[in-house]
């Protein structure tokens, strides 16, 4: 019951849609530094954890301790957003789902999708349930990532896994003619879904950029928790 309530409250589910989170090859969360890309990605991943599905969180910025802390914080924010929850119940649920998350931390310069492929193959080899989603945090989209993205695309296809990326934009940079941030413009052919976060007054506005079924849908998020402001 609690799981269902939490999924319903998830800002990721409400903004992107529960099915749309997984029905993509590549999805992206864009914003400039410090707005909350990673926190939003963690909310996306939490929707899978709450269904007792494994996720793979790959970070090129954070050490694993920080990744673990991010998930606990995001879970607490989500629990707090539905009002009173028996703390024991919430703790028990966290204990149940937290081990479904696999945190991998790499150096940006040495990250190689091949390692991920080897690891995912071991799931298949041993007939284990594959992760349901990959979070890829920290790739520098100002660089030429064609090779890396091609490899990751192959992984996504081979294992049937959606990959959600963080994509950093820059305050001083103009948007492309299409209206997209230039980082996305360069690779837009590869991405099925993109959510843009940007500060608006004391809130964060989220816009789904690549979903024609949701034109002009804007949500305001609380910058402290990334929960939707009602």
């Amino acid at each position: 019951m609690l799981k269902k309530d939490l999924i319903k409250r998830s800002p990721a589910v409400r903004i992107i849609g529960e099915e749309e989170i997984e029905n993509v090859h590549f999805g992206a969360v864009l914003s400039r530094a410090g707005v909350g890309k990673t926190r939003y990605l963690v909310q996306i991943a939490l929707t899978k954890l709450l269904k007792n599905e494994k996720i793979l969180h790959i970070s090129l910025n954070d050490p694993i301790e920080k990744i673990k802390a991010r998930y606990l914080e995001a879970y607490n924010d989500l629990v707090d957003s539905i009002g009173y929850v028996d703390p024991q119940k919430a703790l028990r649920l966290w204990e149940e789902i937290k081990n479904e998350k696999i945190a991998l931390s790499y150096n940006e310069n040495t990250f190689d999708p091949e390692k991920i492929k080897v690891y995912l193959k071991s799931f298949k080899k041993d007939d284990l349930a594959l992760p349901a989603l990959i979070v890829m945090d920290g790739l520098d989209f100002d660089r030429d990532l064609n090779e890396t993205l091609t490899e990751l695309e192959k992984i996504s296809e081979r294992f049937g896994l959606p990959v959600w990326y963080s994509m950093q934009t820059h305050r001083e940079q103009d948007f492309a003619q299409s209206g997209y941030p230039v980082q996305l413009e360069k690779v837009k052919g590869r991405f099925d879904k993109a959510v843009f976060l940007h500060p608006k007054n004391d809130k964060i506005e989220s816009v789904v950029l690549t979903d024609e079924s949701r034109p002009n849908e804007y949500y305001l998020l609380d910058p402290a928790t990334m929960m939707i402001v009602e």
Partner: protein
Amino acid sequence: MQRNLEKVRNIGISAHIDSGKTTLTERVLFYTDRIHKISEVRGKDGTGALMDSMELEKERGITIASAATHCEWKGYDINIIDTPGHVDFTVEVERSLRVLDGVILILCSVSGVQSQSITVDQQMKRYEVPCIAFVNKCDRSGANPFKVIDQLKNKLGHNAIPMQIPIGLEDRHDGVVDLVTMKAYYFEGQFGEKMVEKEMPEDLKEEAARVREEMIDAASMFSDDLTDAILEEKPISEKMIYDAVRRGTNARELTPVFMGSAYKNKAVQPLLNAVVEYLPSPLDIENEAIDLDKNEETVPLISDFEKPTVALAFKLEDGKFGQLTYLRVYQGGIRKGDLLTNTRTGKKLRAGRLIRMHSSDMEEVDEIPAGHIGAIFGVDCASGDTFTGSGVNYSMMSMHIMDPVISLSVKPLDNKSEINMSKALNRFTKEDPTFKTYVDKETSETIIQGMGELHLDVYVERMKREYSADVKTGQPRVAYRETITRKSTFNYTHKKQTGGAGQFGRIAGYMEPTDEWFEFVNKITGGRIPTQYIPSCEQGFKDCMAKGPKMQFPVTGIRITIDDGAYHAVDSSEMAFTAAARGAFLEAYAKAKPVIKEPIMKVVIETPNEFQGSCMGLINQRRGIIEGSQEEGVMSVIESKVPLSEMFGFSTVLRSSTQGKAQYTMEYSNYKQVPQSVAEEIARKKEEEKKEDQK
């Protein structure tokens, strides 16, 4: 022995396996004139390092038992305990930390803070032992002491400050610059025995000044004089810095970091200076005991030679002259012929030969005064026992001891071996509280229990080598447990009328899961069960915990509440209520959804990056959960939780999957319910074993 306790240091050397503890200790003993030749741990001369006094340690290149030794440096008495590095032997580390006043934490300048360093650090925190750090192996390719300092801060939460900077790294590592004196130190002579002070190289001056400023800034938090001197821009004396860093270190709020290469004989002497300069003397440490005559009230122990003696036996060894007991004297002093009491057994004994150890050599002494570590011959006691002089009945705090998680049957091959095995087991259980042994009543097999495969392997080897006991071992067995998952009620009447006095007792109540091993709550009112039978009820329930009804594994995590019952004026007895409790337990247990739990181990693998994926695959294959994996330079660290039952033979598999380049550590984490399919497998095996036994 030194009676000026300000000039005494009791220190340990702790670190991850293969960080160079034993190598460093060898150098320390060489420079303090205790030995006249340096042997390497895996030296070409085949002698092995001096501190690894057990045969097995010399062979495997790991230190598996603390060897205590004594040396002198600049008029200071230093007692050193060399501690083991493998997690399976952490009881040795814990015991050493219990009696030490300070620790040198050794870290590898390439691998940095590794999993075992984290375990050792947690133990140091538990016993509040101040430490200084030594970043070793600065001569190795990829050495980066400042990365290690960052890890000390980030991973272990130490307020780590460099007290030196290296002069060159990797194959160009020549010496260190001391940031207090701002001089360069080089180490000359065949074994680096000549420490030569020179002006620091020009190209290091800027870096040294910058790092020194940061160091002084951190140290100033512990000294008003130093703070004033900084603010008023007065000259800063060396003494001001020494005092401030020493204060911070003793308060465990500062970790001064030194660096060098023990193997290449670089910068060991400055580390010895640091031991006397920054680590506490026995006078700086507050030790406590519990007064057994005053309801276990805590009492402070004072390093005063005139006060009644209080000493802790922290290690036992069997030597050719009988049992050798290592002691730390906290108060008073032990002289030859003194009458001591073992407060655990109440037995009185007379102190015989007292000695000071130098690894396997010994030096006879007349007394072991307060604040010192020594050893005594001919005392029958167990590790952890407290000895007191007349007038006090104190016991040192009990040590934190974990339950064993793995067992193995051992069978002597002949009569002589049986006698020797018995002697060996008797000794080992006294030496090591995490090593346990018992005879299985059903199979009559002798079972040994411990903290891991290697732990038991070493004891089996010691049985063979030191006690000439030829033994055959069975398959390692995991210490499964049973527990319940939901509340259930009982209402059981034990009634027997078979001639003579009858038996009658009725007990009602409920059982429910708890985090404790066993809890008993008595809610009987109105004398439905007379008070004198309540302990029998509790005992009856407790008896059932030893062997669970589901699969005969020990039961854990049960709270019993009794709230109703009945008795008979003539037929009720303690025996009847014990039997009723057993019946009630069985009745409720079956309804409480019993499950099997298995020990889960925290497994940390350190592997070259290229094998990260395959190492994670190995964890997957073993029902393991990967908590995370992190790249650290050329290595990846994989943290995972894996059931112990899946870890047998893991080292061989890991070696073959990584060309022998990965290593792992394993320690007990928690117990967790086994999946249904595994529970069925365990039940099937149990059934097979039963049939085998019946044959």
